[in-house]
Protein backbone atom coordinates (compact mmCIF):
# COMPACT_ATOMS: atom_id res chain seq x y z
CA UNK A 1 0.00 0.00 0.00
CA UNK A 2 1.39 3.36 -1.00
CA UNK A 3 -0.06 4.97 2.09
CA UNK A 4 2.37 3.21 4.39
CA UNK A 5 5.29 4.08 2.12
CA UNK A 6 4.38 7.75 2.28
CA UNK A 7 3.23 8.14 5.86
CA UNK A 8 4.21 4.98 7.73
CA UNK A 9 7.41 6.25 9.24
CA UNK A 10 6.03 9.67 10.01
CA UNK A 11 3.00 8.11 11.65
CA UNK A 12 5.10 5.92 13.92
CA UNK A 13 7.24 8.92 14.84
CA UNK A 14 4.16 10.99 15.56
CA UNK A 15 2.63 8.26 17.74
CA UNK A 16 5.85 7.97 19.74
CA UNK A 17 6.10 11.74 20.26
CA UNK A 18 2.43 11.93 21.18
CA UNK A 19 2.74 9.09 23.66
CA UNK A 20 5.85 10.67 25.14
CA UNK A 21 4.00 13.96 25.76
CA UNK A 22 1.05 12.14 27.29
CA UNK A 23 2.99 9.81 29.56
CA UNK A 24 5.47 12.38 30.83
CA UNK A 25 2.89 15.06 31.52
CA UNK A 26 0.40 12.68 33.15
CA UNK A 27 3.23 11.22 35.25
CA UNK A 28 4.37 14.64 36.48
CA UNK A 29 0.82 15.89 36.92
CA UNK A 30 -0.22 12.78 38.82
CA UNK A 31 2.48 13.07 41.45
CA UNK A 32 2.01 16.79 41.98
CA UNK A 33 -1.73 16.21 42.28
CA UNK A 34 -1.33 13.32 44.68
CA UNK A 35 0.88 15.34 47.02
CA UNK A 36 -1.31 18.44 46.80
CA UNK A 37 -4.44 16.34 47.33
CA UNK A 38 -3.01 14.73 50.45
CA UNK A 39 -1.89 18.09 51.82
CA UNK A 40 -5.28 19.66 51.13
CA UNK A 41 -7.12 16.78 52.77
CA UNK A 42 -5.15 17.51 55.98
CA UNK A 43 -6.53 21.04 56.07
CA UNK A 44 -10.17 20.68 55.00
CA UNK A 45 -11.09 24.10 56.41
CA UNK A 46 -8.76 25.85 53.94
CA UNK A 47 -9.35 23.33 51.17
CA UNK A 48 -12.99 24.42 51.05
CA UNK A 49 -11.74 27.76 49.79
CA UNK A 50 -8.81 26.48 47.72
CA UNK A 51 -10.70 23.80 45.73
CA UNK A 52 -13.25 26.17 44.13
CA UNK A 53 -10.38 28.54 43.24
CA UNK A 54 -8.57 25.67 41.54
CA UNK A 55 -11.69 24.67 39.66
CA UNK A 56 -11.79 28.21 38.26
CA UNK A 57 -8.34 27.60 36.79
CA UNK A 58 -9.68 24.45 35.24
CA UNK A 59 -11.92 26.56 33.02
CA UNK A 60 -8.85 27.97 31.24
CA UNK A 61 -8.57 26.05 27.97
CA UNK A 62 -5.37 24.04 27.53
CA UNK A 63 -4.56 26.03 24.43
CA UNK A 64 -4.03 29.13 26.57
CA UNK A 65 -1.50 27.36 28.80
CA UNK A 66 0.38 26.19 25.74
CA UNK A 67 0.14 29.58 24.06
CA UNK A 68 1.34 31.58 27.05
CA UNK A 69 4.15 29.18 27.95
CA UNK A 70 5.17 29.21 24.30
CA UNK A 71 5.65 32.96 24.47
CA UNK A 72 7.89 32.63 27.55
CA UNK A 73 9.72 29.34 26.99
CA UNK A 74 9.72 29.12 23.22
CA UNK A 75 9.36 26.11 20.96
CA UNK A 76 10.67 23.33 23.21
CA UNK A 77 8.97 20.10 24.32
CA UNK A 78 9.03 21.35 27.92
CA UNK A 79 6.41 23.94 26.94
CA UNK A 80 3.96 21.22 25.95
CA UNK A 81 4.78 18.95 28.88
CA UNK A 82 4.45 21.68 31.50
CA UNK A 83 1.18 22.94 30.03
CA UNK A 84 -0.32 19.45 29.80
CA UNK A 85 0.93 18.51 33.26
CA UNK A 86 -0.82 21.55 34.74
CA UNK A 87 -3.95 20.45 32.95
CA UNK A 88 -3.58 16.86 34.15
CA UNK A 89 -3.30 17.89 37.79
CA UNK A 90 -6.84 18.90 38.42
CA UNK A 91 -8.90 15.70 37.95
CA UNK A 92 -6.41 13.71 40.03
CA UNK A 93 -6.20 16.39 42.70
CA UNK A 94 -9.96 16.63 43.00
CA UNK A 95 -10.43 12.87 43.19
CA UNK A 96 -7.58 12.41 45.66
CA UNK A 97 -9.04 15.08 47.89
CA UNK A 98 -12.63 13.82 47.78
CA UNK A 99 -11.46 10.20 47.97
CA UNK A 100 -9.51 10.90 51.16
CA UNK A 101 -12.33 12.91 52.72
CA UNK A 102 -14.83 10.16 51.92
CA UNK A 103 -12.92 7.65 54.06
CA UNK A 104 -15.27 6.86 56.91
CA UNK A 105 -14.19 8.42 60.23
CA UNK A 106 -14.64 5.08 62.02
CA UNK A 107 -11.84 3.55 59.95
CA UNK A 108 -9.54 6.39 60.94
CA UNK A 109 -10.61 6.03 64.57
CA UNK A 110 -9.99 2.29 64.37
CA UNK A 111 -6.51 2.95 62.96
CA UNK A 112 -5.84 5.38 65.79
CA UNK A 113 -7.09 2.75 68.24
CA UNK A 114 -4.60 0.28 66.79
CA UNK A 115 -1.87 2.74 67.68
CA UNK A 116 -1.09 3.89 64.14
CA UNK A 117 0.67 7.22 63.70
CA UNK A 118 -1.01 9.78 61.40
CA UNK A 119 1.46 8.89 58.62
CA UNK A 120 0.73 5.18 59.02
CA UNK A 121 -2.99 5.88 58.98
CA UNK A 122 -2.57 7.84 55.78
CA UNK A 123 -0.41 5.27 54.02
CA UNK A 124 -2.07 2.09 55.23
CA UNK A 125 -5.70 3.05 55.67
CA UNK A 126 -6.73 6.26 53.96
CA UNK A 127 -4.79 6.07 50.71
CA UNK A 128 -5.71 2.45 49.95
CA UNK A 129 -9.37 3.27 50.56
CA UNK A 130 -9.15 6.35 48.33
CA UNK A 131 -7.34 4.48 45.54
CA UNK A 132 -10.39 3.73 43.35
CA UNK A 133 -11.30 7.40 43.34
CA UNK A 134 -7.71 8.49 42.66
CA UNK A 135 -7.42 6.12 39.72
CA UNK A 136 -10.69 7.37 38.25
CA UNK A 137 -9.08 10.81 38.31
CA UNK A 138 -5.97 9.43 36.63
CA UNK A 139 -8.13 7.96 33.89
CA UNK A 140 -9.83 11.28 33.23
CA UNK A 141 -6.50 13.11 33.19
CA UNK A 142 -5.05 10.64 30.71
CA UNK A 143 -7.95 10.87 28.28
CA UNK A 144 -7.87 14.67 28.38
CA UNK A 145 -4.13 14.75 27.92
CA UNK A 146 -4.22 12.53 24.83
CA UNK A 147 -6.76 14.94 23.42
CA UNK A 148 -4.88 18.12 24.34
CA UNK A 149 -1.53 16.78 23.10
CA UNK A 150 -2.86 17.44 19.63
CA UNK A 151 -2.14 21.09 20.38
CA UNK A 152 1.61 20.43 20.45
CA UNK A 153 1.45 20.65 16.68
CA UNK A 154 0.05 24.15 16.94
CA UNK A 155 3.46 25.37 18.06
CA UNK A 156 5.29 23.06 15.68
CA UNK A 157 6.23 20.30 18.11
CA UNK A 158 4.89 17.30 16.27
CA UNK A 159 2.73 14.50 17.55
CA UNK A 160 -0.46 13.29 15.94
CA UNK A 161 -1.81 16.82 15.85
CA UNK A 162 0.53 17.55 12.97
CA UNK A 163 -1.55 15.39 10.62
CA UNK A 164 -4.75 16.98 11.89
CA UNK A 165 -3.50 20.54 11.42
CA UNK A 166 -2.12 19.88 7.98
CA UNK A 167 -5.29 18.00 7.07
CA UNK A 168 -7.55 20.87 8.17
CA UNK A 169 -5.39 23.47 6.43
CA UNK A 170 -5.26 21.54 3.15
CA UNK A 171 -8.77 20.11 3.37
CA UNK A 172 -7.37 16.58 3.29
CA UNK A 173 -9.73 14.12 5.04
CA UNK A 174 -7.26 11.35 4.88
CA UNK A 175 -4.65 13.24 6.92
CA UNK A 176 -7.24 14.28 9.49
CA UNK A 177 -8.24 10.64 9.93
CA UNK A 178 -4.58 9.65 10.11
CA UNK A 179 -4.22 11.90 13.16
CA UNK A 180 -7.65 11.37 14.69
CA UNK A 181 -7.93 7.59 14.64
CA UNK A 182 -4.58 6.77 16.30
CA UNK A 183 -5.16 9.39 18.99
CA UNK A 184 -8.62 8.04 19.76
CA UNK A 185 -7.21 4.50 19.88
CA UNK A 186 -4.43 5.70 22.16
CA UNK A 187 -6.95 7.23 24.55
CA UNK A 188 -9.01 4.05 24.57
CA UNK A 189 -6.04 1.73 25.12
CA UNK A 190 -4.60 3.88 27.90
CA UNK A 191 -7.95 4.04 29.67
CA UNK A 192 -8.33 0.26 29.40
CA UNK A 193 -4.85 -0.17 30.89
CA UNK A 194 -5.81 2.12 33.75
CA UNK A 195 -8.97 0.08 34.33
CA UNK A 196 -6.77 -3.00 34.71
CA UNK A 197 -4.46 -1.09 37.05
CA UNK A 198 -7.48 -0.06 39.06
CA UNK A 199 -8.50 -3.66 39.56
CA UNK A 200 -5.10 -4.45 41.06
CA UNK A 201 -4.84 -1.27 43.09
CA UNK A 202 -8.08 -1.79 44.98
CA UNK A 203 -7.30 -3.37 48.36
CA UNK A 204 -8.05 -7.11 48.47
CA UNK A 205 -10.62 -6.77 51.21
CA UNK A 206 -12.64 -4.33 49.14
CA UNK A 207 -12.65 -6.26 45.87
CA UNK A 208 -15.38 -8.62 46.95
CA UNK A 209 -17.60 -5.65 47.80
CA UNK A 210 -17.58 -4.32 44.25
Amino acid at each position, binding site marked *: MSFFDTYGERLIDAIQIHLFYVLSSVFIGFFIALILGILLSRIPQYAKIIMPLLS*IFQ*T*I*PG*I*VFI*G*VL*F*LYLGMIPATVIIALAIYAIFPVLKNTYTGLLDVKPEYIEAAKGCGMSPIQTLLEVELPLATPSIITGLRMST*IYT*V*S*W*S*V*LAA*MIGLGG*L*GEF*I*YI*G*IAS*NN*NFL*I*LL*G*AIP*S*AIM*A*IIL*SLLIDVLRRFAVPKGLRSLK
Partner: protein
Amino acid sequence: MDISIILEHLYIVFMSVLFSLVVGLPLGILAYLNKPMRKIVLWVVEILQTIPALALLGLIMVVFGAGKVTVITGLVLYSLLPIVHNTFIGLENVDNGIKEAGKGMGLTKYDRLISVEIPLAFPMIFTGVRIATVTTIGVAVFATSVGGGGLGSVIYQGIRTQNMKLILFGTLALMVMAIFFDVLMIWINSRLVKRSSN
Protein backbone atom coordinates in the same frame (compact mmCIF):
# COMPACT_ATOMS: atom_id res chain seq x y z
CA MET B 1 -12.18 43.76 20.32
CA ASP B 2 -15.87 43.99 20.93
CA ILE B 3 -18.87 42.34 22.45
CA SER B 4 -19.97 40.66 19.21
CA ILE B 5 -17.26 38.00 19.53
CA ILE B 6 -18.47 37.12 23.02
CA LEU B 7 -22.04 36.94 21.73
CA GLU B 8 -20.89 34.76 18.85
CA HIS B 9 -19.22 32.40 21.32
CA LEU B 10 -22.36 32.31 23.46
CA TYR B 11 -24.47 31.63 20.41
CA ILE B 12 -22.29 28.63 19.46
CA VAL B 13 -22.42 27.27 23.01
CA PHE B 14 -26.16 27.80 23.34
CA MET B 15 -27.03 26.13 20.04
CA SER B 16 -24.71 23.20 20.75
CA VAL B 17 -26.12 22.51 24.19
CA LEU B 18 -29.67 22.89 22.91
CA PHE B 19 -29.16 20.39 20.10
CA SER B 20 -27.24 17.96 22.25
CA LEU B 21 -30.15 18.03 24.67
CA VAL B 22 -32.53 17.31 21.79
CA VAL B 23 -30.38 14.35 20.75
CA GLY B 24 -29.05 13.28 24.14
CA LEU B 25 -32.27 13.12 26.12
CA PRO B 26 -33.94 10.52 23.85
CA LEU B 27 -30.67 8.56 23.74
CA GLY B 28 -30.48 8.54 27.55
CA ILE B 29 -34.10 7.37 27.76
CA LEU B 30 -33.41 4.71 25.14
CA ALA B 31 -30.44 3.47 27.17
CA TYR B 32 -32.68 3.29 30.21
CA LEU B 33 -35.59 1.50 28.56
CA ASN B 34 -33.76 -0.83 26.22
CA LYS B 35 -31.13 -3.06 27.81
CA PRO B 36 -29.49 -4.33 24.59
CA MET B 37 -29.13 -0.74 23.31
CA ARG B 38 -27.75 0.50 26.62
CA LYS B 39 -24.23 -0.77 26.17
CA ILE B 40 -24.01 0.47 22.60
CA VAL B 41 -25.33 3.94 23.36
CA LEU B 42 -23.13 4.48 26.42
CA TRP B 43 -20.12 3.08 24.59
CA VAL B 44 -20.60 5.29 21.53
CA VAL B 45 -20.93 8.50 23.52
CA GLU B 46 -17.82 7.60 25.49
CA ILE B 47 -15.82 6.89 22.34
CA LEU B 48 -16.92 10.23 20.88
CA GLN B 49 -15.44 11.93 23.92
CA THR B 50 -12.03 10.32 23.41
CA ILE B 51 -11.61 11.74 19.90
CA PRO B 52 -9.57 14.94 20.20
CA ALA B 53 -11.88 17.92 19.72
CA LEU B 54 -9.80 19.36 16.92
CA ALA B 55 -9.81 16.07 15.00
CA LEU B 56 -13.56 15.69 15.42
CA LEU B 57 -14.15 19.19 14.09
CA GLY B 58 -11.76 18.55 11.21
CA LEU B 59 -13.63 15.40 10.23
CA ILE B 60 -16.99 17.13 10.33
CA MET B 61 -15.60 19.99 8.29
CA VAL B 62 -15.03 17.46 5.53
CA VAL B 63 -18.77 16.89 5.37
CA PHE B 64 -20.26 20.32 6.10
CA GLY B 65 -17.42 22.65 5.08
CA ALA B 66 -15.99 25.40 7.25
CA GLY B 67 -18.49 27.34 9.32
CA LYS B 68 -20.88 27.34 12.23
CA VAL B 69 -22.73 24.17 11.23
CA THR B 70 -19.50 22.19 11.52
CA VAL B 71 -18.66 23.70 14.89
CA ILE B 72 -22.09 23.14 16.37
CA THR B 73 -22.31 19.55 15.08
CA GLY B 74 -18.92 18.77 16.61
CA LEU B 75 -19.76 20.36 19.94
CA VAL B 76 -23.09 18.52 20.05
CA LEU B 77 -21.30 15.19 19.62
CA TYR B 78 -18.81 16.23 22.25
CA SER B 79 -21.36 17.21 24.89
CA LEU B 80 -23.54 14.13 24.43
CA LEU B 81 -21.64 12.15 27.07
CA PRO B 82 -22.64 14.13 30.18
CA ILE B 83 -26.23 14.52 29.01
CA VAL B 84 -26.84 10.91 27.94
CA HIS B 85 -24.98 9.57 30.95
CA ASN B 86 -26.79 11.71 33.48
CA THR B 87 -30.20 11.08 31.92
CA PHE B 88 -29.58 7.35 32.14
CA ILE B 89 -28.20 7.46 35.71
CA GLY B 90 -30.95 9.82 36.84
CA LEU B 91 -33.71 7.54 35.51
CA GLU B 92 -31.99 4.46 36.84
CA ASN B 93 -31.68 5.96 40.33
CA VAL B 94 -35.36 6.80 40.73
CA ASP B 95 -36.50 4.96 43.83
CA ASN B 96 -37.88 1.54 42.99
CA GLY B 97 -40.74 1.97 45.44
CA ILE B 98 -41.93 5.00 43.51
CA LYS B 99 -41.71 3.13 40.19
CA GLU B 100 -43.70 0.27 41.71
CA ALA B 101 -46.28 2.70 43.06
CA GLY B 102 -46.70 4.09 39.55
CA LYS B 103 -47.19 0.59 38.24
CA GLY B 104 -49.67 -0.17 40.98
CA MET B 105 -51.73 2.86 40.01
CA GLY B 106 -52.08 1.37 36.56
CA LEU B 107 -49.76 3.78 34.73
CA THR B 108 -48.29 2.43 31.52
CA LYS B 109 -44.57 2.34 30.94
CA TYR B 110 -44.66 5.64 29.01
CA ASP B 111 -47.01 7.37 31.45
CA ARG B 112 -44.63 6.47 34.23
CA LEU B 113 -41.66 7.69 32.25
CA ILE B 114 -43.21 11.07 31.49
CA SER B 115 -45.08 11.85 34.67
CA VAL B 116 -42.96 10.08 37.29
CA GLU B 117 -39.46 9.09 36.27
CA ILE B 118 -38.33 12.05 34.14
CA PRO B 119 -39.53 14.67 36.65
CA LEU B 120 -37.70 12.85 39.45
CA ALA B 121 -34.57 12.44 37.36
CA PHE B 122 -34.65 16.07 36.28
CA PRO B 123 -32.08 17.48 38.74
CA MET B 124 -29.58 14.85 37.59
CA ILE B 125 -30.33 15.55 33.92
CA PHE B 126 -29.92 19.26 34.57
CA THR B 127 -26.53 18.60 36.16
CA GLY B 128 -25.55 16.87 32.92
CA VAL B 129 -26.65 19.93 30.96
CA ARG B 130 -24.57 22.12 33.28
CA ILE B 131 -21.44 20.01 32.78
CA ALA B 132 -22.04 20.02 29.03
CA THR B 133 -22.44 23.81 29.00
CA VAL B 134 -19.26 24.52 30.96
CA THR B 135 -17.21 22.05 28.89
CA THR B 136 -18.61 23.39 25.63
CA ILE B 137 -17.62 26.96 26.56
CA GLY B 138 -14.02 25.73 26.74
CA VAL B 139 -14.04 23.39 23.74
CA ALA B 140 -15.71 26.03 21.55
CA VAL B 141 -12.29 27.70 21.44
CA PHE B 142 -11.48 25.28 18.63
CA ALA B 143 -14.30 26.72 16.54
CA THR B 144 -11.88 29.19 15.04
CA SER B 145 -9.77 26.44 13.41
CA VAL B 146 -12.74 25.42 11.29
CA GLY B 147 -14.02 28.88 10.52
CA GLY B 148 -16.55 29.22 13.32
CA GLY B 149 -15.28 32.36 15.04
CA GLY B 150 -15.88 32.98 18.75
CA LEU B 151 -13.37 33.71 21.50
CA GLY B 152 -10.93 31.14 20.14
CA SER B 153 -10.12 33.53 17.30
CA VAL B 154 -9.03 36.16 19.81
CA ILE B 155 -6.79 33.69 21.66
CA TYR B 156 -5.27 32.30 18.45
CA GLN B 157 -4.61 35.79 17.17
CA GLY B 158 -2.98 36.66 20.47
CA ILE B 159 -0.71 33.63 20.30
CA ARG B 160 0.21 34.29 16.67
CA THR B 161 1.01 37.95 17.19
CA GLN B 162 2.53 37.35 20.64
CA ASN B 163 0.01 39.74 22.10
CA MET B 164 -0.39 38.93 25.78
CA LYS B 165 -3.27 41.38 26.17
CA LEU B 166 -5.40 39.60 23.58
CA ILE B 167 -4.70 36.18 25.10
CA LEU B 168 -5.61 37.43 28.55
CA PHE B 169 -8.75 39.12 27.30
CA GLY B 170 -9.93 35.97 25.53
CA THR B 171 -9.11 33.76 28.48
CA LEU B 172 -10.72 36.01 31.07
CA ALA B 173 -13.89 36.29 29.01
CA LEU B 174 -14.02 32.48 28.76
CA MET B 175 -13.43 32.00 32.47
CA VAL B 176 -16.08 34.54 33.47
CA MET B 177 -18.53 32.91 31.08
CA ALA B 178 -17.85 29.40 32.38
CA ILE B 179 -18.08 30.42 36.03
CA PHE B 180 -21.19 32.49 35.46
CA PHE B 181 -23.08 29.63 33.83
CA ASP B 182 -21.82 27.13 36.37
CA VAL B 183 -23.00 29.20 39.32
CA LEU B 184 -26.26 30.17 37.63
CA MET B 185 -27.15 26.57 36.81
CA ILE B 186 -26.20 25.29 40.25
CA TRP B 187 -28.52 27.92 41.67
CA ILE B 188 -31.38 27.00 39.32
CA ASN B 189 -30.90 23.33 40.16
CA SER B 190 -31.03 23.94 43.90
CA ARG B 191 -34.26 25.91 43.44
CA LEU B 192 -35.75 23.06 41.41
CA VAL B 193 -34.81 20.49 44.03
CA LYS B 194 -36.24 22.64 46.80
CA ARG B 195 -39.51 23.14 44.96
CA SER B 196 -39.96 19.50 44.13
CA SER B 197 -39.27 18.35 47.68
CA ASN B 198 -41.91 20.68 49.15
